[in-house]
């Protein structure tokens, strides 16, 4: 009784309802929710302050001519989109560079990750050490330090040219040649295969050994076992990795920003990099915001495409009754 009285006093609005048991339970839930929300408040506050509100603001700015130095944006409607699609040759160069990168770097990284994962999918001694070693590049992954190191390695006086010179090959300006520059970034991306590799590895561990044994008894060779057992059973994991890597592929920024700066001939001018240059070098924040929203739509479209296609190539054991 004292408890109920106290609660009623603390929450006067509930005084009438408090006597009914159902209501009491609901009030208890509400208290639990309050505690829950309080505990996630740090994340919530940061989410609103640094993600949601800036996103809404950028949606508005995408329809303005906002330049970062002066405070007043003017509404220009779809003018930014018009400029982007019809008047800006560099925009299409950045789209081309980004697609080139995504189409090549993402499959290569996945293939590489899968290959290494299969090598590591044994129970020999010391394999966990190798796992850690192969994962290491991804830990330092998108960092500026690695990008700077990359610049040195592929520089004209860098490691690669020093090695090729030993074999009498003339040095190549890897970062300055329009044909090779983007490949230095693709190699960098492939080298950072660690996180998809770990996910593949867990996927591989879940494929029952009996299947391989049964197939081997039936006379299936290694290729058969890979294409008819490993790949189908791994397809949900491949699907997950493909989606994640495609999304991050479209947003690639740091590597190009540090290693090549978009040069030469805009062959490494990735979309995010160009967006950044427009916003922060040219102060055209409205235009940059419009570019960002177009990118969002494009990424969403391709993610949806991968999802749609998944019904043709992703097999879930439960559904297929394997």
């Amino acid at each position: 009784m004292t408890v109920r009285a106290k609660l009623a006093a603390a929450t006067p609005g509930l005084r009438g309802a408090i006597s009914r048991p159902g209501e009491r339970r609901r009030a208890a839930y509400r208290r639990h929710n309050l505690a829950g929300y309080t505990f996630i408040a740090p994340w919530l506050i940061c989410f609103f302050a640094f993600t949601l509100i800036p996103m809404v603001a950028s949606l508005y700015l995408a329809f303005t001519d906002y330049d970062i130095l002066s405070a007043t944006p003017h509404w220009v409607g779809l003018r930014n989109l018009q400029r982007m699609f019809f008047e800006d040759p560099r925009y299409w160069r950045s789209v081309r560079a980004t697609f080139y990168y995504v189409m090549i770097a993402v499959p290569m990284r996945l293939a590489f990750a899968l290959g290494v994962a299969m090598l590591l999918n044994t129970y020999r001694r010391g394999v966990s050490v190798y796992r850690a070693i192969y994962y290491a590049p991804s830990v330092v992954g998108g960092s500026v330090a690695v990008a700077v190191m990359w610049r040195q390695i592929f520089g004209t006086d860098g490691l690669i040219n020093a090695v090729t010179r030993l074999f009498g090959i003339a040095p190549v300006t890897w970062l300055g040649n329009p044909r090779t520059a983007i490949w230095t970034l693709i190699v960098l991306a492939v080298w950072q295969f660690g996180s998809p590799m770990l996910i593949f590895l867990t996927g591989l561990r879940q494929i029952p050994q009996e299947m391989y044994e049964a197939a081997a008894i039936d006379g299936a060779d290694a290729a058969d076992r890979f294409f008819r057992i490993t790949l189908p059973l791994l397809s949900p994991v491949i699907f997950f990795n493909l989606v994640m890597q495609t999304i991050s592929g479209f947003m690639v920024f740091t590597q190009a920003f540090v290693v090549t700066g978009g040069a030469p001939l805009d062959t490494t001018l990735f979309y995010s990099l160009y967006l950044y240059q427009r916003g922060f070098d040219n102060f055209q924040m409205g235009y940059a915001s419009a570019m960002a929203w177009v990118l969002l739509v494009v990424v969403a479209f391709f993610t949806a495409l991968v999802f749609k296609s998944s019904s043709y190539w992703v097999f879930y054991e439960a559904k297929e009754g394997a």
Partner: protein
Amino acid sequence: MNRNRWPIVLGVVLALSLALSACAPAATPTPQPKPATAAAQPTSAQAQPTTAPTAAQAQQPVELRIVWWGSQDRHDRTIKVINLFMQQHPNIKITYEFVAWADYWTKLATQAAGEGLPDIIQQDYAYIGEYTNRNLLLPLDDYVKSGVINTADVTPAELDGGRVNGKLVAINLGSNSQCWVLDVDAFQKAGVPLPAPDWTWADMEKAAMQIHDKLGIWGMGPGLWDEQIWASLYLSLGQWRYNADGTAIGYTDDTPYVQHLERMLRLEKAGAIVPRAEDVANYYGKSVEAQPIVEGKAAMAYFWSNQIVAVWKAAGENRNFKMVPLPRMEGGKSANYIKPSQFWSIAATSKHPKEAAMFIDFFTNSVEANEILMAERGVPISSKVREALKPKLGKSQAAMFDYVAEVSKTAQPIPPADPPGHNDIVKNVLYPQVADPVAFGQLTPAQGAAVLRKEANAILAKNKK
């Protein structure tokens, strides 16, 4: 029931403290209450009579932020001067940031957008117009009038570069002009005569080719695709690249620029100049210490005259450099002008403009400070400082003083500040749509010049009223 509420209270406290520490920008320290005793600090006032802070002001703790771009040499010198200033003004604390040129304006624009500009800002002639038109810089006329910034030893012409719309918004840190730096030893080794001050682009090409043939090094370093070179071609012909009201390209004949691009291609093909590919891969955006002339990989280089100090320091005092003006167009006049190398400005949002002005004064007039700076930012504007420095100049500073004095005899008047859109033209048209495609053979020089005209005019057309 009370007991049950504890987790919530605890949660709220935890959450708030986490949120505050995670999200909030580092709080600016609240100014401490002014101490009542105002007699303690006469030393600083005596040490620096030109600034003469009253005792009361000397007591009030003030924090200033300052930002500049530059080379390692400049960072070291500037930090020393800041420390010296703080020693003489114990109540003023200056925190500093410095970055390379390539990132500087990005950083500054972001800070401007967040209304967090540092109190004292290093400014450039290419940007003061843009910053002043957006009311981001504090007019300094009052501080000059009241003598906080002492300009008694400065000629008006040396201040005028910092005037926008009739108001003084920036104090010139040194006079400067573009130059060709020659590696004298390489010239002698190759048996190539040193060029005369009125040499032409054809002379330049010949020298670069000869040196490359004889020594196998690059005749000339990178940077000839630079927008300033584009400007200098027309300046030498007595024209300017933009028209008077900044609404279109100012010249009618593309031929000089086409010829320049053709010359670049000839030099690149012969291997007599750092190729564009090498430039973007290894040199672009790096500070001057990284330029090939420093390591003896090139015999000539294109710089602003003040940069010789950092270049010479990085290359070593035993090297033999000579500075000559920019090559002229055939039959043209001087392609040089005297430019304020850079400025100090005060942000309009500064809470302590007076102390910031005191620092600028110190930087401009203190002999002690300039003995540390050693004209690294260009020839000092104060005649008193110049006189005091002269006997102490090293090789590089003496060369710079002589060069600027010599060049100012023939130099053209300073061209008007670049119109809005200039930055857009340089970064989105000149390099990516003209220089690169021409250098990599996608466009002919004539097509490149035509693209530049068309796209630049489209951008400048927005300036029409």
